[in-house]
């Protein structure tokens, strides 16, 4: 229920008590650039892009941290805001490969095009895993930074590729701390944190160990919140479409989208509206599905044991054999075991078969984790 009213850019906006100014603006479809904000993380106030002017408040408060209050009068753009916002973005770009970001051809540039500006391959947006899905690109396009007046820091920073599922490339990191907050607030492990002070600050593990040598559970909650291409999965194939389903691994039942391309699963994404997981996934759900579904050892056709050896058979043959054999038993003489690696939909049908057709409650599957 909307219970407070703000004026944003001269427009009356309804909001709920407890919302931030940013949330109130977003609910009213008013865009404010952000980089460190993430909907399910605590406000941070680090990137300083969401600065606004609020009557009766000193300076330029950040929309993402300021609680919305009844009667607030907010302005999201002015010369003062633009100056500081532009400066902050320019400063962020001095620590991120930015030649492509400044370039007007970025949207048309393909991975095999020759760069007319001789941007190093590793610095090009087209080679970045986050290309076209990058919040920094969006913000640069909105704010419009075309030329840096201050030099870019091109010194190489460490890359941690020790985790089998994802990589941390600090050369692209803008220190928004979303990953760190995700690990602390969402996963509640706190494997990663910011270490060092000032310009030396970086995302690191306790004792600066490679991720694989820590208590990291590889859930990837950090990675999915990275606004840029600093944390990215090792297997990246852009899907053609997504299919919503429920994770098959355990009894929790996390909602997920399977990315599909050419009939194969390319990746998994949590469903934010999923009632049990609110978009979160564990290592198995996030990184373990495409692997087993696409695995070469997986059966793609029924097998029938003949003379002590499994031989490939057609579905007709296999089903005929099952019908012939099962027909000899009644009720609790039968038990049915199905597989957690089948889809929930298949398992549902399986228990229907057991209860309604075979007449037994002896039905179970292996996902008793």
């Amino acid at each position: 229920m909307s219970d407070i009213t703000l004026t944003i850019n001269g427009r009356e906006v309804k909001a709920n008590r407890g919302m931030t100014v940013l949330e109130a603006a977003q609910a009213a479809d008013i865009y404010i650039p952000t980089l460190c904000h993430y909907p399910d993380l605590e406000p941070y106030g680090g990137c300083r892009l969401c600065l606004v002017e609020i009557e009766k408040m000193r300076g330029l408060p950040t929309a993402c941290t300021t609680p919305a209050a009844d009667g607030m009068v907010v302005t999201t753009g002015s010369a003062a805001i633009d100056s500081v916002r532009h400066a902050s973005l320019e400063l962020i770009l001095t620590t991120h490969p930015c030649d492509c970001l400044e370039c007007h051809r970025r949207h048309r540039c393909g991975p095999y095009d020759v760069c007319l500006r001789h941007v190093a391959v590793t610095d090009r947006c087209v080679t970045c895993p986050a290309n076209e899905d990058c919040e920094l690109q969006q913000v640069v396009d909105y704010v419009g930074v075309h030329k840096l007046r201050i030099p870019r820091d091109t010194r190489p920073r460490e890359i941690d590729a020790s985790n089998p599922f994802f990589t941390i490339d600090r050369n692209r990191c803008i220190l928004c701390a979303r990953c760190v907050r995700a690990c602390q607030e969402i996963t509640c492990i706190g494997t990663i944190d910011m270490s060092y002070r000032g310009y030396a600050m970086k995302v690191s593990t306790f004792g600066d160990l490679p991720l694989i040598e820590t208590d990291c559970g590889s859930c990837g909650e950090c990675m999915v919140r990275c606004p840029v291409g600093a944390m990215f999965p090792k297997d990246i194939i852009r899907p053609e479409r997504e299919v919503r389903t429920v994770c098959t691994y355990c009894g929790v039942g996390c909602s997920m989208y399977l990315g599909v391309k050419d009939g194969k699963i390319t990746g998994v994404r949590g469903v934010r509206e999923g009632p049990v997981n609110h978009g979160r996934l564990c290592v198995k759900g996030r990184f373990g599905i495409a692997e087993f579904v696409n695995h070469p050892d997986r059966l793609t056709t029924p097998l029938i044991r003949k003379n002590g050896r499994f031989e490939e058979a057609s579905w007709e043959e296999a089903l005929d054999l099952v019908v012939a054999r099962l027909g000899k038993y009644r009720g609790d003489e039968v038990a049915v075991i199905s597989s957690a690696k089948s889809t929930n939909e298949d398992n549902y049908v399986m228990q229907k078969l057991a209860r309604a057709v075979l007449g037994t409650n002896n039905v179970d599957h292996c996902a008793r984790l």
Partner: protein
Amino acid sequence: MTAAKPGSNHQRTIFICQGTGCVSGKSFDITAALSRAAKEQGLAGVNVDFTGCHGFCEQGPVAIVEPDGIFYSQVTVADVPEIVQSHLRDGKPVERLFYKDPVTGEAIPHHRDIKFYSKQQRIILRNIGRINPERVDDYIAMGGYESLKKVLKEMTPGQVIAEIKRSGLRGRGGAGFPTGTKWEFCHNAAGDQKYMVCNADEGDPGAFMDRSTMEGDPHTVLEGMTIAAYAIGATEGYIYIRAEYPLAVKRVRLALQQSEEKGFLGDNILGSGFSLRIHVKEGAGAFVCGEETALLASIEGKRGMPRSRPPFPANSGLWGKPTTINNVKSLATVPVIIARGADWYAATGTEKSKGTCVFALTGKIANSGLIEVPMGIKLREIIYEIGGGIPGNKKFKAVQTGGPSGGCLPESYLDQSVDYESLAAAGSMMGSGGMVVMDEETCMVDVARFFLSFTQAESCGKCVPCRVGTKQMLDILERICRGEGKPEDMDILQELGQNVKVGSLCGLGQTAPNPVLTTLRYFRHEYEAHINEKRCPALSCTSLTSYFILPDKCQGCGICLRNCPVGCIAGDKRMVHIIDQEKCIKCGTCLDVCPERFNAVLKVSGETIEVPAAPVPVTAGKPAAAAASQKE
């Protein structure tokens, strides 16, 4: 025991300073030696005692003999027998150890006549140097804990708040927020549990007023804190002290114990029904942990990073509960205001800045140390009267107030009143009370670079303008000091500095550009000289200076050649020596060692001196010849 001669061995107490400065000058040993010697001499009426810091650390270790009021400076263990025999036994003060006025050279026996002290007005530091900080009874004898009794017996929290508001007391931690109003917010905030926090982090380099207060008069901080807790309704308190202050930690812990034993802390204080428990939390020494929200995060065990306000700590502080944070000095003032009344306190100071302020006076100044002065005093009075002026007949150039992110003010501001508003209007600030005096040999670009290098390294890294902006500014300043400045640098510094000030999350970033912006404003010509002429007017930036041996003055003595650490001086006996400019590392050794009567080495910036390509025979025999050749 030998009976002392009548008339000479009156009741006398010698107070040895045991503040950190004097302790490093072996004042523990001096105290022990004095006790031993007094015992050996059988001086029954003589007490050997110690106090906290007197503030005049420059002259340490210091000691005061009461009731005579005699002040001894730079005492050593070797001086002990003479002090004991001559003064404590025979009543004849040791003149040799009197303080000498740096200007007149006159020896001054009495503490009260020393200009460093006579111009001061001590409210916060009132007891320091006069009581033994490890004895609660000393504090009580000075009227200590009377204010707490008055508050608990006669005043409601609302009345306490009203009194503090009326006194005009403003926070001494830097921001100068009215203390009474702060308490009122917290008092009015809804919450089942409230916290009172004392900010004793004191991270400014060179600042030591909070440390001195805790080391020299810890009970006044506890009393002020208990009164504050009563006013806001807190039952738990934290004192956040940096772990680098072991003596302060020790004395505060001892004071807490004594105060509990006396019933001034704990359950049902003085039968009032009000209870308070105070914990000491030792900080790991990050400058930013002095910022109140970072401090709270640190107490909670998190990384010490500030967070945005609102919500303010008064509503959501420690563990989300209403919390008041006050500086050590703000709290030390509270008992005095209660005891002597708001009107008495408000009579000192300016219209908007009441009372006194404490400064750690350092730099190119004769009397460096800790001083307490009334608000509204002129910078000139502090520097020339209390501070004794600039040593070595050097010219004053600038004074920086407010710690590493204060501004540098030029001579034209010497008659500026010292208060929150005036300093802020001049581009500087009150801060926590650092005051660094600079003379003509100080390069203002280098000063800006130096302070920014501190704030940059101490930035917590959370927000972009401070983390990256100060780094970019620092890079530019370093370039300018190296002689690689570009004409557009000044504009970029100005614009970036302004954006960092406005865009940063906390006070650290919001003030870090001050030294740069004020030096750009008041000492622009120095930037221009560095950038356009590659010249450092103060002859301070190494990359822009060079050393030359003047051919018309060099006597060929060879001292410089023998001392140059990199062996870049060519020459021989009675030959004019020559520095290889390519190899010279500009250490200045040759200038230091060249005999004063020859005065043949010259340090210059932005110019070169004509010298022969290889050593030639010395011509500078007579002064006339030297004068003649100089004219050419």
